[in-house]
């Protein structure tokens, strides 16, 4: 086995899971532990992907409900209680639709593009820390892996725009690719300033120095990380093509942008990828800046109950940020293309570079202590000077 610790290693600590695994192993006569290990890993991965796909699906419902709330309407309220089954109705409708591809399109790339998008998002679930136990793989390059693998989404958008053989799609795809590549820079620089504080690339390292209370979060560690959080959040809005940066699918100019020619579930995959990516970047923001899954007083640490509490904390923080993302969409008008680029290159990137430098200087001068630590030590040693 490699040095990676996976979720199955964590589960094997519990007695009932060991009992189940030995029982199943003796039933089907599997002597190799690794077959069962792989099957269990695939099962847990499938469950996580299913749950997050449901979160992405209900993202559309949340979007419509919240936008209706902001605009003083009711939103979907016919299918099921409070319109909750609207998602299922939408999904069934999409599956039932005819699968159309344009005549002159590049069929291979046209069919491939939605899967590149969805793969780029789902692959990030492998390292997302839902709780101390429920992390599919605790690789030591966690955050670096997320930054790398999510670039496939931009590739998928670009390929979709090219393969559709439509002017709207091509313009949307080009905009999407240039926007995503540009905004990766401030995102990565803000993440790097946090990595300087944590001293490691894995999510465990990042979470080790944070506590459950806001005073111990990295966002309140020093002024530079406080600015860095907002730089990160604005940039990920652009990277996930959310309004006010949804230029690749600007309805008023480009019909529907890169997915103009897609119908049915192929379009659905793009929409699902977008909503799941918003969840992923909000989860990253919660982990990097807002203390992640830490529960106050470490209640139930090391037990299943504690894991459930930690998952609840993670989801609460992430869905709170998710609400803000939707809120922003229905509050601000869309930017113009050249404004979008100038915001990235003339404002966000220099600010992020300045933050990186600032955090380094802070670590050098204050020995990596947070502003609260410095304040407390100043109070305790203050009267000596008088």
């Amino acid at each position: 086995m490699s040095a990676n610790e996976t979720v199955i290693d964590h589960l094997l600590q519990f007695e009932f899971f060991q009992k189940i695994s030995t029982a199943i192993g003796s039933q089907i006569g599997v002597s190799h532990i690794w077959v069962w290990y792989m099957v269990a890993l695939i099962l847990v991965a499938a469950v996580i992907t299913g749950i997050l796909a449901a979160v992405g699906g209900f993202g559309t419902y949340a979007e419509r409900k919240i936008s209706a709330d902001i605009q003083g309407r009711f939103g979907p309220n016919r299918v099921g209680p409070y319109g909750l089954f609207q998602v299922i109705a939408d999904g069934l409708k999409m599956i039932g639709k005819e699968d159309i591809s344009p005549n002159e399109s590049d069929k291979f790339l046209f069919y491939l593009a939605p899967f590149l998008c969805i793969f780029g998002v789902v692959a990030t679930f492998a390292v997302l820390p839902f709780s101390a136990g429920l992390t599919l793989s605790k690789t030591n390059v966690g955050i670096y892996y997320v930054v790398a693998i999510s670039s496939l989404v931009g590739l998928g958008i670009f390929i979709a725009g090219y393969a559709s053989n439509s002017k709207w799609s091509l313009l949307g795809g080009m905009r999407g690719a240039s926007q995503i590549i540009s905004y990766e820079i401030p995102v990565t620089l803000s993440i790097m300033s946090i990595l300087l504080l944590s001293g490691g690339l894995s999510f465990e390292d990042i979470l080790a120095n944070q506590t459950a209370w806001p005073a111990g979060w990295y966002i309140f560690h020093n002024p530079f990380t406080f600015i860095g959080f907002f730089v990160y959040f604005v940039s990920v809005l652009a990277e996930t093509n959310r309004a006010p940066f949804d230029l690749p699918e600007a309805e008023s100019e480009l019909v529907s942008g890169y997915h103009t020619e897609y119908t049915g579930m192929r379009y659905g995959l793009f929409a699902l990828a977008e909503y799941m990516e918003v969840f992923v970047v909000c989860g990253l923001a919660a982990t990097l800046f807002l203390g992640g899954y830490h529960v106050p007083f470490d209640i139930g640490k090391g037990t299943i109950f504690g894991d459930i509490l930690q998952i609840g904390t993670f989801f609460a923080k992430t869905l709170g940020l998710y609400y803000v993302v939707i809120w922003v969409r229905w509050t601000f008008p869309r930017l113009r293309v050249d404004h979008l680029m100038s915001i990235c290159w003339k404002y966000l990137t220099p600010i992020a570079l300045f933050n990186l430098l600032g955090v380094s200087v802070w670590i050098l001068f204050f020995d990596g202590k947070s502003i609260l630590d410095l304040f407390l030590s100043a109070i305790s040693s203050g009267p000596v000077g008088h």
Partner: protein
Amino acid sequence: MLPEIVLLFSAFMVFLGGILLISTKNLMHSCIFLLMCLFGVAGVYASLGAEFLAVTQIIVYIGGIVILMLFAVMLTGGKEFISRLHKVLNLAPLMGDKSTYMKGSIVGLIIFGGLSAFFYQLLKVLPLKEQQVSDYKIIGHSLLTDNLLAFELSSFLLLGALIGAAIIAKPEKVSESKPTDI
């Protein structure tokens, strides 16, 4: 056992991607198969315990090079350009000739044989068991201590490339300034 399965699967991906990459005539498809091939290489690195190298492979080659290639292909022009290119390629001596293929395959075999003999010797010497320490810390430490000069020189090279690209891409001076549209 899991790393071995990942290794075999990744090696198959590299092989299949490479074969498809050179056999297809569509440049965009070639780029996608190149992506598959490079992803397989990243998988090989990951299964051998070099996670940092694997992720760097993804971030540099898939996030950077493949997207750059797709952009370059899209900016080269349409069907007229490609037919002109084919004409030039047919005119060039020894292109698509039988003897070219012969010479090419002989050279390829020699290089492949030499490299595999070299790596076989290397594999016998090197211990393949992965280290338990996180490898990126060692890389970072050695970059900023023992190999500082090489690191700085390459950063100068990249800075030069950046400035050069900015100068090449600088728009010509025109009297009326219009907003650029992408």
